[in-house]
């Protein structure tokens, strides 16, 4: 860990902010200028966190701090090869900027727009959930965001499935972009939002999105994240979600791409009977480093939370899981469960996990579990004794392990996309192993 590098890396971003300050979207809005200045101050104070900071104990941001990023230079009319859409509706961002020309948002029963163009109306909403003082990456995002997706679902609206595609372009020097997405579901509304990403194989960039998500009474947001960034990319994402009484926020994150990835999710269950399911799979090879950090706050009674994260590690990869469940005194009848499992398939891989319970109410049922190890030799033998060759037996068990993490996803389109991504990933690894 090199404090000097971390400082220099942060200084580059602060310098850019000072140069751009007036020209950033909403530069004339006093509330936004104040928000950005406050975030800049927080980022100046914290910089890129070193591993001495408890929340970053297992993830070293030195490679990000060292990289030296530029502005994305994409021209507005660059032709783009887009992957086929997952569902009908899709919002497309290129290097963090909304591209209406590439998006297909016609006929949606709700408002989907660019944050940059709607800033006038976002005072008190943008920044309501993010905590730049606590999370330095949110500070960086607040300081420099240019655009994002603005979603508003009216009462009882069924928003169907919306894909949020993030494209990165390749350029000489790595680019950094910090989209700020705002999602709001009014009472009884529902939506499945699926994030996907694509970039040229060799692209180097930092994708640093922040989501602020508000789920009102009895509304339901299913948030799928298929993180398949380019192999040399950095993705550091922070999600803030707030769920009102009877509402549900489901998050499923697949971490399969990127060189260094952190997927940080903060969910607050603030009304009775709110629920949250957070599941994820991390599929890591080579030199990849992926970190899933969740913080679930039970602030109201009778809420339920479920978390299952499975990590498969190959090569010299390193996986991190940190999961904190906080149960406030008011949150009686809380039912919280968290499980994280890791499968080490290579002698050079490493898994660090830190599940955490912090409980201030007595009438609760909370548990967590963690396992790290290789495939169970008993299971391998059982399969072999039934005639299944060893290689196939091992593959079956890995597939089952991956499947287990996806199992909790009830949303069909998301489930299909995940199944395909997981199966595709494993097929590539098997090919690699066979070769």
């Amino acid at each position, binding site marked *: 860990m090199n404090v000097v590098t971390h400082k220099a890396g942060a200084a580059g971003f602060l310098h850019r902010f000072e140069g751009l300050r007036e020209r950033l979207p909403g530069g004339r809005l006093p509330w936004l200028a104040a928000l950005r200045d406050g975030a800049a101050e927080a980022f100046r104070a914290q910089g890129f966190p070193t591993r001495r900071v*408890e929340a970053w104990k297992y993830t070293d941001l030195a490679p990000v701090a060292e990289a030296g990023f530029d502005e994305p230079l994409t021209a507005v009319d660059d032709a783009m090869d887009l992957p086929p859409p997952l569902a009908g509706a899709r919002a497309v961002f290129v290097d963090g900027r909304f591209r209406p020309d590439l998006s297909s948002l016609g006929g949606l029963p709700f408002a989907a727009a660019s944050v940059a163009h709607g800033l006038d109306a976002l005072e008190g909403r943008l920044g309501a959930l993010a905590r730049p003082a606590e999370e330095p990456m949110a500070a960086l995002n607040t300081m420099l965001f240019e655009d994002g997706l603005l979603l508003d679902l009216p009462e009882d609206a069924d928003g169907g499935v919306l894909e949020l595609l993030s494209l990165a372009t390749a350029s000489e020097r790595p680019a950094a972009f910090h989209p700020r997405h705002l999602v709001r579901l009014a009472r009884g509304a529902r939506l499945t939002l699926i994030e996907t990403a694509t970039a040229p194989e060799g692209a180097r960039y930092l994708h640093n999105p922040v989501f602020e998500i508000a789920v009102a009474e009895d509304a339901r947001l299913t948030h799928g994240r298929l993180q398949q960034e380019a192999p040399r990319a950095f993705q550091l994402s922070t999600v803030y979600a707030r769920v009102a009484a009877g509402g549900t926020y489901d998050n499923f994150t697949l971490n399969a791409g990127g060189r260094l990835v952190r997927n940080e999710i903060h969910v607050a269950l603030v009304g009775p009977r709110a629920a949250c399911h957070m599941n994820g799979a991390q599929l890591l090879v080579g030199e990849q480093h992926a970190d899933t950090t969740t913080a679930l706050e039970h602030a109201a009674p009778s809420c339920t939370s479920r978390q299952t994260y499975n990590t498969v590690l190959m090569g010299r990869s390193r996986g991190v899981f940190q999961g904190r469940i906080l149960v406030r*005194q008011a949150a*009686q009848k809380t039912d919280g469960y968290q499980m994280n499992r*890791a499968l*080490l*398939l*290579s*002698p050079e*891989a*490493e*898994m*660090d*996990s*830190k*599940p*955490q*319970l*912090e*409980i*201030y*109410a*007595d*009438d*609760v*049922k*909370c*548990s*967590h*579990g*963690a*396992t*790290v*190890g*290789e495939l169970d030799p008993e299971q391998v033998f059982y399969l072999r004794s039934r005639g299944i060759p060893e290689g196939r037996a091992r593959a079956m068990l890995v597939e089952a392990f991956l499947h287990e993490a996806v199992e909790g996803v009830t949303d069909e389109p998301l489930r299909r996309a995940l199944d395909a991504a997981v199966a595709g990933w494993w097929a590539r690894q098997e090919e690699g192993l066979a070769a």
Partner: protein
Amino acid sequence: MPAVNETLETVQSVTQGTYKWGFETDIEMEFAPKGLNEDIIRFISRKKGEPEWLLEWRLRAFKAWQAMSEPRWAAVKYPPIDYQDAYYYAAPKRRPKSLDEVDPELLKTYAKLGIPLKEQEWLAGVTTSPDGTARAPVAVDAVFDSVSVATTFKERLEKDGIIFCSISEAVREHPELVRRYLGSVVPPADNFYSALNSAVFTDGSFVYIPKGVRCPMELSTYFRINAKSTGQFERTLIIAEAGSHVSYLEGCTAPMRDENQLHAAVVELVAHDEATIKYSTVQNWYPGDAEGRGGIYNFVTKRGACRGARSKISWTQVETGSAITWKYPSCILQGPDSVGEFYSVAITNNFQQADTGTKMIHLGPRTRSTIISKGISAGHGQNTYRGLVRISPKAVGARNFTQCDSLLIGDRCGAHTVPYIENRCMSAKVEHEATTSRIAEDQLFYCRSRGLSEEDAVGLIVNGFCREVLKELPMEFAVEAQKLLQISLEGSVG
């Protein structure tokens, strides 16, 4: 649930009264001047007639300590400690030459604590367990404030070549052993409190079990803080040579006072090939009153090194006392196939805070560790399990199993679990499970419908909750510990 509130009130009213070890012994004492500086350290070293190397070792530790700051990562809150406003040396004036010369007041003190210091009494079975059976003899080292006042059964143990004495005596009589092992498991500058302890430690126990010897009786040390404004900084060192076996127990109590007193001990264990050390603690320092006034700050570093193949170190702790407990008895599993165990019950009631757990550092192949932690929080108590399991790349085939359960009684307390799991070895397997719950209504109802009072039902259920840990205690102490649990929580219902 009115019944619950009522019983919670009962707990508060009785807790203070039930700390029956809160008396003070009136005895003539000798103090060093208040405060901490090099002169005080020289004073302590001179008092104990220590060799030059040890004084220098202490001064080096003091230098290191001055450059360090108090750890703040634990989930405990307390006002700043003024390290200059305490006595670092307090000893009874009359120093006995043998057991017969021990001040009768001291003998009475230990008798009141249920620990006879006269071997004849042990052997006559004068002391009986609550269940009425005579207890097996236990060799005792009694540490009163800064010094050891008596060690029993020394002659009997010497027959087997076992050394059991105060660490001060060991420095004089067995300097080569002390010099070789002191600080070899917990280096002086390991952390803030170990550095402080290394600078000012006054006494503690020393145990040496020669090759192949199975210690014929339980060894134990009873620590008593008596003097006001005094810190206790004891140092314990246990060495088990190849193939030896020892079971050691420590107990601790202190008077009831409004002030907070600091206890910063260091315990080092070394187990060579196929040696086994079982270290049990019944920690019953004064916990403070119902409003959180007074009580001991218990900041302790305990660590064992399993240096030899197939060696084993087992920590068992029952933590019922102290205002604050900060303690992580750990095992460094170096020898191939070595085994580390940690069994813990920690209770926090009223305003007690405990941040306790263990570190299992797996270095050698096929090393195994087990962690069973039971936390019980009542009143405004805050109870944190904090533990690290680290598997290094060379710990091929290593195994760890961890189970942490928390029980909450009342809605103003907290229970927290913070495990760190770091696995860098593919063939190792680490399993961690944690649960938090309260005593189920139906369990209580079931017991009561069978005629148990609510209090007895809670006691029964809590004891059941802790059973896995309590059964690890040596027989002689299990009953005592069980009773202590009941007293610590008397009347509470969740």
